């Protein structure tokens, strides 16, 4: 049940992308009960996830970026 802070951070990150298993989440919960630093990190990390969702960010795909670069290079 006991995990290190590094492991807790790893699980916490995976949890943001729903890639942490149920058992990992339980271990994280237990850890943040006794570790103030990880508790703070976990709260901030979760808040950051909701900020990213709220911002509805979009990116240009790598493929399109490469095409853009090629067009720009032609004019350089």
């Amino acid at each position, binding site marked *: 049940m006991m995990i290190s802070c590094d492991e807790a951070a790893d699980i916490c990150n995976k949890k943001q992308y729903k890639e942490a298993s149920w058992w990992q989440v339980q271990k994280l919960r237990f850890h943040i009960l006794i570790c103030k630093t990880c508790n703070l990190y976990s709260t901030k990390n979760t808040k950051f996830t909701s900020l990213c969702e709220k*911002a*509805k960010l*979009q990116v*240009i795909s790598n493929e*399109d970026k490469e095409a*853009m670069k090629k067009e*720009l290079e032609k004019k350089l």
Partner: protein
Amino acid sequence: MRPNKHMPAHELHPENWVDQYADYLFNYAITRVSDTEIAKDLVQETFFAGLKSAKNYKGDAAERTWLIAILKRKVIDHYRKINSKKGKAEVRMSYNSGDEDSGDWLEEKVADPFGKGGDDTIENRELGLAIQDCISKLPKKQSMVFSMKTIQGMSTEDICNELGINPSNLWVMIHRARTALMGCMNQNWF
């Protein structure tokens, strides 16, 4: 070192524009034109226009600020272009019925870059640009992995295959990126 009076404070590096500013400009454009293809075209046109007028760049403004100023003009040009007589009539009908002095809808839209959205929309746009600004400060590979995972929502396996890394590397990069981004984001957002 004291800044030299004759030396520009900023310089242009067009070879880095796509990597450093494309996503930021894209998010700026998309909130104003609401169409990904048009937004992409506007970003490309901004880069071309930037190259064309590079000789006029005095170095007073940061490179990105200068590019944003060009993009703003491109957005205005875009609305002017679609503000053909036919388009204008169609738009006005839905904008304001019966009032002759209602003004030019498109000009108003351009004059107010945040359109007619409420406070929440404005905040979300500012938030998006703040996050994008922080992402652009990350090392290239970290920003790539973070964007693919968080914004594009790609699976861990697909990202690993595309970038030739293993899942442990990916999670280390995600951790570093998220920690840096949380540090970069203004405390007001939390």
